Protein backbone atom coordinates (compact mmCIF):
# COMPACT_ATOMS: atom_id res chain seq x y z
CA UNK A 1 0.00 0.00 0.00
CA UNK A 2 0.95 3.66 0.02
CA UNK A 3 0.12 6.64 2.18
CA UNK A 4 -0.14 9.97 0.40
CA UNK A 5 -0.21 13.31 2.14
CA UNK A 6 -1.87 15.96 -0.01
CA UNK A 7 -1.91 19.67 0.81
CA UNK A 8 -3.88 21.87 1.03
CA UNK A 9 -7.09 20.00 1.77
CA UNK A 10 -9.17 22.93 0.61
CA UNK A 11 -8.76 26.50 -0.52
CA UNK A 12 -10.79 29.43 -1.75
CA UNK A 13 -8.92 31.47 -4.33
CA UNK A 14 -9.47 34.64 -6.32
CA UNK A 15 -9.80 34.35 -10.07
CA UNK A 16 -6.59 35.06 -11.94
CA UNK A 17 -4.36 33.66 -9.20
CA UNK A 18 -2.53 30.31 -9.03
CA UNK A 19 -2.55 27.49 -6.49
CA UNK A 20 0.09 24.81 -6.02
CA UNK A 21 -0.99 21.44 -4.64
CA UNK A 22 1.57 19.12 -3.09
CA UNK A 23 1.61 15.35 -2.74
CA UNK A 24 4.10 13.45 -0.62
CA UNK A 25 4.20 9.63 -0.78
CA UNK A 26 5.63 7.42 1.97
CA UNK A 27 7.46 5.22 -0.55
CA UNK A 28 9.21 5.60 -3.89
CA UNK A 29 6.91 5.27 -6.89
CA UNK A 30 7.62 5.51 -10.58
CA UNK A 31 4.44 7.22 -11.73
CA UNK A 32 2.15 9.69 -10.02
CA UNK A 33 -1.20 10.63 -11.46
CA UNK A 34 -3.13 13.88 -11.14
CA UNK A 35 -6.91 13.91 -11.49
CA UNK A 36 -9.64 16.53 -11.56
CA UNK A 37 -13.14 15.83 -10.31
CA UNK A 38 -15.66 18.50 -11.22
CA UNK A 39 -18.75 18.85 -9.00
CA UNK A 40 -20.99 15.80 -9.23
CA UNK A 41 -18.76 14.16 -11.84
CA UNK A 42 -16.36 11.26 -12.07
CA UNK A 43 -12.58 11.54 -12.16
CA UNK A 44 -10.70 12.83 -15.19
CA UNK A 45 -6.98 12.23 -15.59
CA UNK A 46 -5.04 15.46 -16.04
CA UNK A 47 -1.53 14.08 -16.44
CA UNK A 48 0.95 11.39 -15.50
CA UNK A 49 4.15 12.52 -13.80
CA UNK A 50 7.35 10.52 -14.05
CA UNK A 51 10.47 11.50 -12.14
CA UNK A 52 13.09 13.08 -14.36
CA UNK A 53 10.91 13.69 -17.39
CA UNK A 54 8.13 15.97 -18.57
CA UNK A 55 4.66 15.07 -17.47
CA UNK A 56 2.34 13.49 -20.03
CA UNK A 57 -0.89 15.46 -20.37
CA UNK A 58 -4.26 14.13 -21.44
CA UNK A 59 -6.36 15.68 -24.15
CA UNK A 60 -7.84 18.96 -23.00
CA UNK A 61 -5.13 19.72 -20.44
CA UNK A 62 -2.02 21.80 -21.19
CA UNK A 63 1.20 22.44 -19.34
CA UNK A 64 0.74 26.21 -19.24
CA UNK A 65 -2.49 25.79 -17.29
CA UNK A 66 -1.47 22.81 -15.14
CA UNK A 67 2.31 22.76 -14.71
CA UNK A 68 3.58 19.72 -12.82
CA UNK A 69 6.85 19.10 -11.05
CA UNK A 70 8.29 15.72 -10.06
CA UNK A 71 11.65 16.39 -8.44
CA UNK A 72 12.02 12.91 -6.88
CA UNK A 73 10.30 9.55 -6.51
CA UNK A 74 8.20 10.55 -3.48
CA UNK A 75 6.95 14.05 -4.28
CA UNK A 76 5.02 15.96 -6.91
CA UNK A 77 3.21 19.26 -7.28
CA UNK A 78 0.38 20.40 -9.52
CA UNK A 79 -0.22 24.09 -10.10
CA UNK A 80 -3.56 25.39 -11.28
CA UNK A 81 -2.69 28.65 -13.05
CA UNK A 82 -4.68 31.77 -13.85
CA UNK A 83 -7.73 30.29 -12.18
CA UNK A 84 -11.33 30.89 -13.19
CA UNK A 85 -14.53 29.69 -11.49
CA UNK A 86 -14.59 26.77 -13.97
CA UNK A 87 -11.51 25.41 -12.22
CA UNK A 88 -13.50 24.84 -9.04
CA UNK A 89 -13.09 21.10 -8.50
CA UNK A 90 -11.52 18.46 -6.33
CA UNK A 91 -7.95 17.72 -7.39
CA UNK A 92 -6.48 14.35 -6.45
CA UNK A 93 -3.08 12.73 -6.74
CA UNK A 94 -2.71 8.99 -7.01
CA UNK A 95 -0.05 6.28 -7.14
CA UNK A 96 0.07 2.60 -8.01
CA UNK A 97 3.00 1.30 -5.98
CA UNK A 98 3.13 -2.12 -7.61
CA UNK A 99 2.40 -1.00 -11.14
CA UNK A 100 -1.04 -1.24 -12.75
CA UNK A 101 -2.61 -2.76 -9.68
CA UNK A 102 -4.14 -1.04 -6.67
CA UNK A 103 -4.33 2.73 -6.81
CA UNK A 104 -4.07 4.90 -3.72
CA UNK A 105 -5.16 8.49 -3.42
CA UNK A 106 -4.33 11.54 -1.44
CA UNK A 107 -7.03 13.20 0.61
CA UNK A 108 -7.89 15.55 -2.27
CA UNK A 109 -7.82 19.32 -2.56
CA UNK A 110 -11.22 20.98 -2.75
CA UNK A 111 -10.68 24.18 -4.72
CA UNK A 112 -13.22 26.97 -4.99
CA UNK A 113 -12.46 29.91 -7.28
CA UNK A 114 -14.41 33.10 -6.67
Amino acid at each position, binding site marked *: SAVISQKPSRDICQRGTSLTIQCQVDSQVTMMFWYRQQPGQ*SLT*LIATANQGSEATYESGFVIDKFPISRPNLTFSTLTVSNMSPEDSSIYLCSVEPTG*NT*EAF*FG*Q*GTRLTVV
Partner: protein
Amino acid sequence: GIQVEQSPPDLILQEGANSTLRCNFSDSVNNLQWFHQNPWGQLINLFYIPSGTKQNGRLSATTVATERYSLLYISSSQTTDSGVYFCAVGGVSNYQLIWGAGTKLIIKP
Protein backbone atom coordinates in the same frame (compact mmCIF):
# COMPACT_ATOMS: atom_id res chain seq x y z
CA GLY B 1 -11.47 3.00 -25.71
CA ILE B 2 -13.05 1.01 -22.94
CA GLN B 3 -16.47 2.14 -21.76
CA VAL B 4 -17.47 1.70 -18.14
CA GLU B 5 -21.09 1.85 -17.02
CA GLN B 6 -22.26 1.74 -13.44
CA SER B 7 -25.75 1.09 -12.17
CA PRO B 8 -27.82 2.25 -10.51
CA PRO B 9 -26.76 5.91 -10.57
CA ASP B 10 -28.47 6.57 -7.25
CA LEU B 11 -29.56 4.32 -4.41
CA ILE B 12 -31.34 5.24 -1.19
CA LEU B 13 -31.66 2.57 1.49
CA GLN B 14 -32.52 2.21 5.13
CA GLU B 15 -29.83 1.26 7.56
CA GLY B 16 -29.48 -2.51 7.72
CA ALA B 17 -30.45 -3.16 4.12
CA ASN B 18 -28.30 -4.98 1.58
CA SER B 19 -27.32 -3.60 -1.81
CA THR B 20 -25.72 -4.67 -5.06
CA LEU B 21 -23.85 -2.24 -7.30
CA ARG B 22 -22.94 -3.18 -10.85
CA CYS B 23 -20.10 -2.23 -13.19
CA ASN B 24 -20.17 -3.21 -16.87
CA PHE B 25 -17.16 -2.74 -19.12
CA SER B 26 -16.87 -2.99 -22.87
CA ASP B 27 -13.53 -4.76 -23.41
CA SER B 28 -11.01 -7.06 -21.78
CA VAL B 29 -9.34 -5.63 -18.70
CA ASN B 30 -6.42 -6.58 -16.52
CA ASN B 31 -7.22 -4.14 -13.76
CA LEU B 32 -10.52 -3.48 -12.02
CA GLN B 33 -10.93 -1.60 -8.78
CA TRP B 34 -13.80 -0.46 -6.60
CA PHE B 35 -13.51 2.77 -4.63
CA HIS B 36 -15.61 4.55 -2.05
CA GLN B 37 -15.57 8.34 -2.02
CA ASN B 38 -16.75 9.69 1.30
CA PRO B 39 -18.68 12.96 1.65
CA TRP B 40 -15.41 14.80 2.29
CA GLY B 41 -14.04 13.74 -1.08
CA GLN B 42 -11.49 11.16 -0.05
CA LEU B 43 -11.21 8.05 -2.24
CA ILE B 44 -10.65 4.74 -0.51
CA ASN B 45 -9.62 1.63 -2.39
CA LEU B 46 -12.08 -1.15 -1.54
CA PHE B 47 -11.04 -3.96 -3.86
CA TYR B 48 -8.55 -4.71 -6.57
CA ILE B 49 -10.44 -7.43 -8.40
CA PRO B 50 -9.78 -8.03 -12.11
CA SER B 51 -11.35 -11.47 -11.69
CA GLY B 52 -12.79 -13.72 -9.02
CA THR B 53 -14.38 -12.96 -5.68
CA LYS B 54 -13.10 -11.14 -2.59
CA GLN B 55 -14.63 -10.30 0.75
CA ASN B 56 -13.75 -7.74 3.36
CA GLY B 57 -16.13 -7.63 6.28
CA ARG B 58 -19.58 -6.53 5.15
CA LEU B 59 -18.32 -5.84 1.64
CA SER B 60 -17.64 -8.33 -1.10
CA ALA B 61 -17.00 -8.10 -4.82
CA THR B 62 -17.17 -10.44 -7.77
CA THR B 63 -15.78 -9.89 -11.25
CA VAL B 64 -16.76 -12.14 -14.15
CA ALA B 65 -14.15 -11.06 -16.68
CA THR B 66 -15.48 -13.27 -19.48
CA GLU B 67 -18.87 -11.56 -19.23
CA ARG B 68 -17.36 -8.11 -18.60
CA TYR B 69 -19.04 -7.13 -15.37
CA SER B 70 -18.30 -6.73 -11.71
CA LEU B 71 -20.60 -6.56 -8.70
CA LEU B 72 -20.06 -4.92 -5.33
CA TYR B 73 -22.18 -6.22 -2.46
CA ILE B 74 -22.78 -4.27 0.71
CA SER B 75 -24.56 -6.11 3.50
CA SER B 76 -26.19 -4.68 6.63
CA SER B 77 -25.65 -1.11 5.43
CA GLN B 78 -24.56 1.56 7.89
CA THR B 79 -24.85 5.33 7.56
CA THR B 80 -21.08 5.48 7.18
CA ASP B 81 -21.44 3.53 3.92
CA SER B 82 -22.98 6.61 2.33
CA GLY B 83 -21.03 8.24 -0.47
CA VAL B 84 -20.19 7.53 -4.07
CA TYR B 85 -18.90 4.16 -5.23
CA PHE B 86 -16.71 4.15 -8.32
CA CYS B 87 -15.59 1.32 -10.53
CA ALA B 88 -12.37 1.89 -12.51
CA VAL B 89 -10.80 -0.43 -15.06
CA GLY B 90 -7.47 -0.66 -16.82
CA GLY B 91 -7.14 -2.11 -20.30
CA VAL B 92 -4.70 -4.77 -21.43
CA SER B 93 -2.54 -2.30 -23.36
CA ASN B 94 -3.04 0.90 -21.38
CA TYR B 95 -2.06 1.62 -17.79
CA GLN B 96 -4.64 4.38 -17.41
CA LEU B 97 -7.70 3.79 -15.27
CA ILE B 98 -11.03 4.40 -16.97
CA TRP B 99 -13.67 5.50 -14.48
CA GLY B 100 -17.37 4.85 -14.32
CA ALA B 101 -19.79 7.64 -13.45
CA GLY B 102 -20.33 6.24 -9.97
CA THR B 103 -23.26 5.10 -7.84
CA LYS B 104 -24.36 7.56 -5.20
CA LEU B 105 -25.48 5.64 -2.12
CA ILE B 106 -27.44 7.22 0.71
CA ILE B 107 -28.09 5.17 3.84
CA LYS B 108 -30.83 6.59 6.04
CA PRO B 109 -30.84 5.92 9.79
